[in-house]
């Protein structure tokens, strides 16, 4: 019995060290980031587009707008294609095909983001530059690259959401003479709505967190982009570009950008959790 107690104690120590390690990060980021926001003033920090660290101007509005544009763009592309994919794989494709395609999707979620970024730079950017004009490095390029990147994540969660809908719902609707497509639109999508919304939110969470691929294809210009073809700098790429040489207030401003991202993503996760729990309460209670 004594050995049992000892092992229990060891597990406690390891658990505490892990949890304190994770708490350390959160505390460290907030301790480094929040004071500068207060010093500069939240209104100045969040609502000014003047980012000039050498002169002490720390306004991240243009980068927040940049992140927003790119994330929404990626979500639009991600949703359209992954919803189509999820519906086809769960409803309209022969079982052997969906059985082989599903693991392929999971594999593609593992591909490093720099690969997506590189292919974007080499193929997509020149294409946009020639056909649509502008520098090619743009919100559009970043949205497409991120859209493709988060697509596997959204698709696999969407497939789970669609498969969670009880088969009896679908059979009931078909028994009333509805075509499979009508069943999908009127029954399936409505029943799995919360799971799908959660999938999109989590997809956006991953898109807003991407850094290197965005640096490669977005152009990293400081001004707020006025159109799809304008270059853009997101919150994450700003941190990556400047953290090597930032010091003092400038480094704290980068941590403040990190705090902003941390809060945004926590809100996204909580929203996704709330949405999926709200409708799925019944499913999980089985």
């Amino acid at each position, binding site marked *: 019995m004594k050995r049992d107690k000892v092992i229990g104690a060891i597990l406690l120590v390891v658990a505490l060290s892990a949890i304190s390690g994770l708490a350390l990060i959160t505390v460290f980021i907030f301790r480094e980031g929040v004071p500068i926001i207060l010093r500069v003033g939240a209104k100045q920090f969040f609502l000014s587009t003047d980012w*000039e*660290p*050498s002169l002490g101007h720390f306004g991240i509005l*243009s980068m927040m707008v940049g992140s927003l544009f790119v994330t929404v763009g990626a979500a639009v592309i991600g949703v359209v294609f992954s919803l189509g994919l999820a519906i086809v794989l769960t409803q309209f494709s022969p079982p052997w095909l969906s059985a082989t395609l599903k693991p392929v999707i999971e594999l593609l979620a593992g591909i490093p983001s720099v690969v997506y970024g590189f292919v974007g730079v080499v193929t997509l*950017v*020149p294409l946009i*530059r020639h056909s649509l004009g502008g*520098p*090619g*490095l743009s919100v559009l390029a970043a949205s497409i690259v991120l859209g493709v990147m988060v697509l596997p994540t959204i698709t696999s969660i969407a497939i789970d959401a669609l498969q969670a809908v009880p088969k009896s719902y679908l059979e009931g609707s078909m028994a009333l003479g509805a075509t499979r497509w009508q069943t999908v639109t009127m029954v399936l999508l409505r029943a799995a709505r919360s799971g799908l919304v959660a999938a999109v939110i989590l997809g956006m969470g991953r898109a807003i967190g991407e850094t290197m691929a965005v*640096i490669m294809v977005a*152009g*990293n*210009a*400081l*001004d707020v982009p006025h159109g799809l073809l*304008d*270059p853009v*700098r997101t919150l994450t790429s700003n941190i990556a*570009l*400047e953290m*090597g*040489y*930032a*010091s003092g207030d400038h480094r704290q401003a980068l941590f403040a950008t990190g705090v902003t991202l941390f809060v945004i993503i926590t809100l996204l996760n909580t929203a996704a959790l709330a949405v999926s729990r709200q409708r799925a309460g019944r499913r999980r209670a089985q």
Partner: protein
Amino acid sequence: MDRRAPSATGRDGEPVSVAGGDALPIMVNAKSIFQSWVVILGLVLICDGCGRTSGRSVSLLGSTSIQPFAEMLAERYGKDHPGEFVEVQGGGSTAGLQAAEKGLATIGMCSRSLTAKESLLFTPILIARDGLAIVVNPKNPVASISIEQLRALFAGRVTNWNEVGGKDGPVRPITREEGSGTRESFVRLIMSGERISGRALTQESNGAVKELVKGDPAAIGYMSLGLVGKELKAVPVDGIEPTVKNVQAGRYNLVRPLLFVTKGSVNPAAQKFIDFVLSPEGQRLLATEGLVRIR
């Protein structure tokens, strides 16, 4: 249905030898996973110990303008002095100063002159001079650009190539991140007080600027003269060709110092490498690569 409880002794048929695996197959390899984990961790830590003793390595970090040249020197130095290792990493000039200050690197590489505050903290060692080339896509017909035109282009006041002798079309200025020494020199030598346009595309290294200008006919950027190579067109400024000869002769005045920067006392291994860089052979190597030697 067998209702007879078999007596403990009697056994029908041959003795049943139950060939069973070891006690708890899965549990055994779970234990072995744990043991192998401990062994690997031990090995890694041991090799850490032995690594540290074999020859202190010299690490350089900083300006992406100096990095390729420093890498070339490091490789030559490594051949001539086996056992002495010199590592070179990029990140930009101010990152180099940061690294030297915080002990992340033995020598910081900086491609701009130090500010007053910085020169109190660091001891700069001039290893060469480098021209600041204005580069455009080879297809761009522009013959020469004046300093004022350059300032207007990069400040965003002039946005069409036909105003500076190029084909009609939008101008796309490309700049470096703020920590770059090349940018700092560009701002000091060209912009004189005016801010670079917020629409300028920002790249974080000379190589990235080069790749972008190579791909975009409408682009104009600035980079280390020594790294221009044949794929880009270096534009004469005020009619003066950006060549090493013109820089040496002082005709092409967009020039900046390339510095090694150290903080406090320099360890002997680093000093040996610095001496090599400043030696005639080191200077000859830098000159052949397109830099302006200082000795």
